């Protein structure tokens, strides 16, 4: 029992550390972005009012006041942090809607796509590994080749090919489908290149694990090849890929910008792209905040997954 309590304490401590470092990350990213956006030339009022709007000085003043642009930068910064603490990310220049509303409106679609793409990536990568890693050179070469080729594929090109072939030509999938059928092609376009990356990393650690003496020990116990692969080598192989979860999610978020365009999906990528094109700074800031939060969340999930696969570190911490 004492062991479990120690584990719980260690887990809670780790969680607290993650949250604290997450706060730090949040603050640093927000501050850096805020500073960077200060140097961008151009008057935000023009963006708020929209292209070619006829603005009287009164209207300009009203807009400035409404968006707090009449205050000095330091005050706006403190104001932003204060708002952030209350979950208020300000108003979009473009649509004049609360940034939180806009972001939350896109969140569901992005989360669905990210999870679907991650699943595709892991399933493809692991299938490839289990079928081809640590086998004959021919199989290994095939698996390795598949991984190198897919990881080099531009995701947006893959997306274009997929939608042209399977949606426009063969009509197997809807062009703008909602729900699961609309998720498959974009998830493949994102997941396959990622599977190449994950596969390469995982193959390395899988083959390393299979070459470890413990693999010989396992076989010497009469365990089958499949058992060795699934129960032993796979666990080891998963660790580096899991450790890269944050990178993977980041990669997916980035790549989804183009994929969402191609598949006419809504989502954070599209939101951010538009914000960048229209210089809608509050949305850019809000996206940075969201990404920092995702970073913290994925870190915590990564910790959890790592714990499921490898309890050594936590046990070690518990003892220390």
């Amino acid at each position, binding site marked *: 029992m004492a062991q479990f309590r120690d584990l719980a304490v260690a887990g809670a401590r780790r969680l607290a550390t993650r949250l604290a470092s997450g706060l730090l990350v949040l603050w640093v990213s927000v501050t850096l972005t805020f500073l960077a956006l200060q140097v961008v030339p151009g008057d935000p009022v023009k963006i708020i009012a929209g292209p070619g709007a006829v603005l009287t000085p009164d209207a300009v003043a009203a807009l400035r006041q409404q968006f707090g642009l009449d205050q000095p930068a330091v005050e706006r910064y403190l104001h932003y942090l204060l708002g952030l603490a209350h979950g208020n990310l300000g108003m979009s220049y473009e649509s004049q809607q609360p940034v939180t509303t806009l972001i939350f409106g896109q969140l569901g679609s992005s989360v669905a796509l990210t999870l679907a793409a991650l699943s595709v990536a892991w399933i493809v990568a692991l299938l490839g590994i289990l079928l081809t890693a640590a086998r004959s050179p021919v199989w290994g070469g095939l698996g390795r080749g598949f991984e190198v080729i897919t990881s080099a594929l531009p995701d947006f090109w893959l997306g274009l090919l997929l939608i042209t072939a399977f949606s426009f030509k063969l009509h197997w999938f809807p062009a703008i489908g909602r729900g699961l059928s609309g998720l498959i092609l974009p998830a493949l376009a994102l997941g396959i290149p990622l599977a190449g990356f994950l596969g390469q990393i995982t193959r390395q650690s899988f083959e390393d694990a299979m070459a470890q003496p413990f693999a010989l020990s396992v076989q010497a116990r009469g*365990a089958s090849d499949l058992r060795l692969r699934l129960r032993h080598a796979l666990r080891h192989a998963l660790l580096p890929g899991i450790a890269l979860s944050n990178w993977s999610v980041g990669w997916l978020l980035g790549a989804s910008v183009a994929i969402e365009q191609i598949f006419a999906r809504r989502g954070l990528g599209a939101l951010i792209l538009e914000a960048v094109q229209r210089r809608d700074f509050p949305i850019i800031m809000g996206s940075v905040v969201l990404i920092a939060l995702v970073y913290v969340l994925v870190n915590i999930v990564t910790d959890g997954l790592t714990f499921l696969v490898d309890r050594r570190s936590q046990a070690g911490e518990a003892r220390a």
Partner: protein
Amino acid sequence: MSGADTLAHVENLTVRFQRPHPRTVLRDISFTLQAGRILAIVGESGSGKSVTGRSLLGLAGAGAVVTAQRLEIVGQPVLGLSQRAWRRLRGKEIGLVLQDAMVSLDPLRPVAAEIGEVLAVHDIGSRGTRPARVIEALTEAGVPRPEERARQRSGELSGGLRQRALVAAAIAARPRILIADEPTTALDPTVQRQILDLLRTMAERGDAVLLITHDMGVVSAVADDVLVLKDGHVIEQGPAQDILRTPRHAYTRSLLAAVPGHRSGPSRIAETSDETPALAVSGLTKHYPRPDGAPVAVVQDISFTLRQGRTLGLVGESGAGKSTVGRMLLGMTEPDAGAVRLLGDPWSGIAEPLRRSRRAAIQMIYQDPLSSFDPRLTVRDILLDALHAAGLRDKPAALRRAGELLAQVGLPERIIPQSPRILSGGQRQRVAIARAIATNPRVLICDEPVSALDVITQAQVLELLDSLQKRLNLSMVFISHDLGVIGQVSDDIMVLRDGQVVEHGAADAIITAPKHPYTRQLFEAALHLPKAA
């Protein structure tokens, strides 16, 4: 010997590999494994001894072609067996114990899961009764508090416990044959002794043990029969007593001779007490913080004087603080208390720039020489770099000197443009030695310099160090966990345990009459060859 007791028959076993290039690694080996007896297969790395053991498990390796006149395990011919049939034998009829349990047990799984796996695979017992059998196996393997250990992972266990857990996993299904492949290499002597005793117990209980080792000391400690392998051929084969006492073959004799032992006789250098000591160490102490912040004494109050041209052996088990002492002697780590004087002048507690100019006088030889070489450099660059440090900047002169150094350490000059990576372990260590003596040092710190080498190479390197010491009047601090090596090279011996000096004195005195119980225990655990007939 009666057939009933013969658990394995091997006749003219030959193993060829097709990848990466076709070659025969084992040719016409024949032996039997008898119940109650331990057969030791001895050889250097690459002799084919591991492949022999693995062939008995049907795990010779990818692309291996295994042929034999006869290959029977517990009465069953196994040549041409399907993988499924092999799996029924593995673990159940033959157990395997590998070298380092740290990597031979799955580090991600608790010990119980590893031991239980063999039971689950062979459907021994039920889900309910297996845990009890796991505990039993651990107990048989001599693991104290087995219930607690079963829950831990291999990384959480000490080296000795871990190795026992590995044995427990091998014997859990009660196989009649146990193959132990270098089961004690790299273990501290006391742990080594315990594992060997465990193997002996298994044999006495009626199992057959195939012990694979490079160490004649291990052979002499437990083996009943010996098979000496070299390059895949049997050199000599027979009862252990005969071969150890009256080796017929020169190779066997060289293996035996390579086992380090005490070099008896008086010290080589006449004592001149007024001479400046090479190293004078007083009250040396070093603390390191534990993870929770509290300081732990890694080295506590160590004092000694190393006279010029003499060797101090620093011996102890892992964690005794030997290497920390070495680093402090080298001026790479500042002691928390105490002082080091090098050739009479203060060496610890001075500014690094002051120390730098005198570094040439004290050099080091490592366990893993390769890691001490800049991977970009060739042998030539390495030596020139060292000579540059010693002040020799004229290139032709430095090149000439580099050639001399190579000759001094017994290396051919043709290796000079090569990278150390493509050299053998012994050659690398010689390059390291050449670099160390390039600066004309007065003192050499040798930190486990031969632990990673084959027995024969080990003997050669020790001999080289000995001759260099005589020729160059070097003073040495020799750090090792291997009592045999320490005994062979040292004039004085200091025994360390948990950072403290247990015993310190002349080598002869300590070896022949250790005073402290710990020293005695260490020496009892050490392996000795029987006196040659």
